[in-house]
């Protein structure tokens, strides 16, 4: 909120490029899973456990409807990425992404790693994210000056990101372990149970899980580091450099989780989740100079 109160002028290209990056990631993510989504919506209806906006349903929608909504989301994602008809497409795309991922999570397993993607999309969908780097901007020929209206969505996205890290931190210390969570035993056991589940269900646990399991001190270090990163995440909003440092640290944490537990937080691992912390429009300048 502090950042929002003193929102400063921001280039429209930064917000536009963030929109294109997040839209492009979403398109890749959903297109790759189109077949899987078609299978998931055909799961035994008794396993239907609606979450989020899907809670308005008592039972699954007919599969042709679910398939159509999935495909409509792909189309809206493409238009959102290109930045075409954003005043309509932006909110529609936000709603479709929220619906599609909620519906995908309504079969007994919630994939929390998609939370941030949905939240970021919601913000972009209602902001003026196509005033630059978009089809809309090409058509109108607008070249808007930097303005806080291009900054607040990024600040809000960052604030929402830090909140989604702070909440797991609170859950850890508020859980049965309390502050002793920082000792690392819970994290060590979490790595163990996750490895066992993987092996039991025919996947492979990462070698690092086995290799590091004896190293209790290392898990204390990991636990303390992750707790600091999560509980104090909102402080990253107070200072630009601190924010970037936090983003890099969180990005590193996800790659660490990937190496030790084999868990892929794809949005975070791609780096797109943290792009809003940086002056990404400089990439466009680099491209222009290279030409």
């Amino acid at each position, binding site marked *: *909120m502090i950042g*929002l109160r003193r*929102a*400063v*002028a*921001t280039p429209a290209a930064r917000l536009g490029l963030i929109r294109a990056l997040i839209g492009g990631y979403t398109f890749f993510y959903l297109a790759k899973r189109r077949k*899987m989504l078609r*299978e*998931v919506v055909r*799961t*035994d209806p*008794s*396993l239907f456990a609606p*979450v*989020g906006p899907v809670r308005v349903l008592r039972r699954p929608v007919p599969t042709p409807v679910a398939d159509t909504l999935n495909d409509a989301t792909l189309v809206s994602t493409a238009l959102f990425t290109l930045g075409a008809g954003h005043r309509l497409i932006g909110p529609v795309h936000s709603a479709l992404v929220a619906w599609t*991922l909620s519906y995908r*999570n309504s079969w*007994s*397993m*919630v*994939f*929390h790693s*998609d*939370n*941030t993607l*949905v939240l970021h999309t*919601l*913000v972009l969908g209602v902001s003026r994210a196509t005033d630059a780097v978009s089809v809309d901007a090409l058509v109108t020929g607008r070249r808007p000056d930097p*303005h*806080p209206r291009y*900054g607040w969505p*990024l*600040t*809000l996205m960052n604030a929402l990101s830090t*909140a989604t890290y702070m*909440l797991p931190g*609170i*859950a*850890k210390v*508020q859980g*049965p372990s309390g502050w002793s969570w920082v000792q690392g035993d*819970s994290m060590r*056991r*979490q790595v*163990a*149970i996750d*490895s*066992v*589940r993987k*092996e*039991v*269900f*025919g*996947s492979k646990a990462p070698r690092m*899980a*086995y290799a590091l*399991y*004896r190293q209790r001190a290392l898990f204390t270090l990991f636990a303390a580091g992750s707790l600091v990163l999560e509980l104090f995440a909102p402080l990253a909003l107070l200072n*630009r450099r601190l924010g970037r440092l936090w983003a890099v640290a969180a990005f590193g944490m996800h790659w660490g989780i990937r190496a030790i537990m084999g868990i892929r937080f794809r949005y975070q691992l791609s780096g797109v989740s943290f792009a809003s912390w940086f*002056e990404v429009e400089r990439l466009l300048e680099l491209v222009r100079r290279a030409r």
Partner: protein
Amino acid sequence: MSGDVIHAETWGPRERKWVRLFAVTALGAVLLPVRQNWRAAERRTDGFPFSYYPMFSKRRRQYANVVYAVGILADGTRRRLRYSVLGAGGLNQVRRQIYRVALTEERAEDYVTALVPRLLTNPTCDDLVRVEIVRGEFDLDECLLTHQIEAATETVLASADLGRVPATAAELTPAAELVTAEELIPTSVPTPGAPSPGTSSAPGAERGQAAPADLAGAPQ
């Protein structure tokens, strides 16, 4: 966010109010689930995309239960079934579904009944003659330190024949007919630790409490 502070008048007439309202609503919606942490465990509800991240507030002990499916070959060899054989949506979704149905809702028989036709149409399961839904208790330290993922104890929650005559038996009795999936009747062992009905036990494995050695043939 670099650049100079822009004067308020450059905003649209209601633009700033709308931004504030949206920002406060979005942040509030994300932070609101935190109150779940202070609720009684049975009253907590998770959501999407607004969550309190319950997986981080669970107690993690040395022993952990996992519910999974085991396929049994004609020679008695036991093989844990891969998640993709059991359902769509990936490992974690399948794992949560089998746990929910078999353990939380105590409908392991329903699960195994629904699974049989799926296995009969899966070429990778051609060698299976039987399937069991099993709850395994794993000693996490033992598993990770020895690199052997074997259950300390196993309880068969439900099982079903796949209606296939073992190859050796078929050779001896050529007239033997294969039963269809519709004729299959799942058997179950409702009481953990109790001896099971004869038709559902794996060779050498006492029902309910199978020793890790009983799974020696299970590929990892």
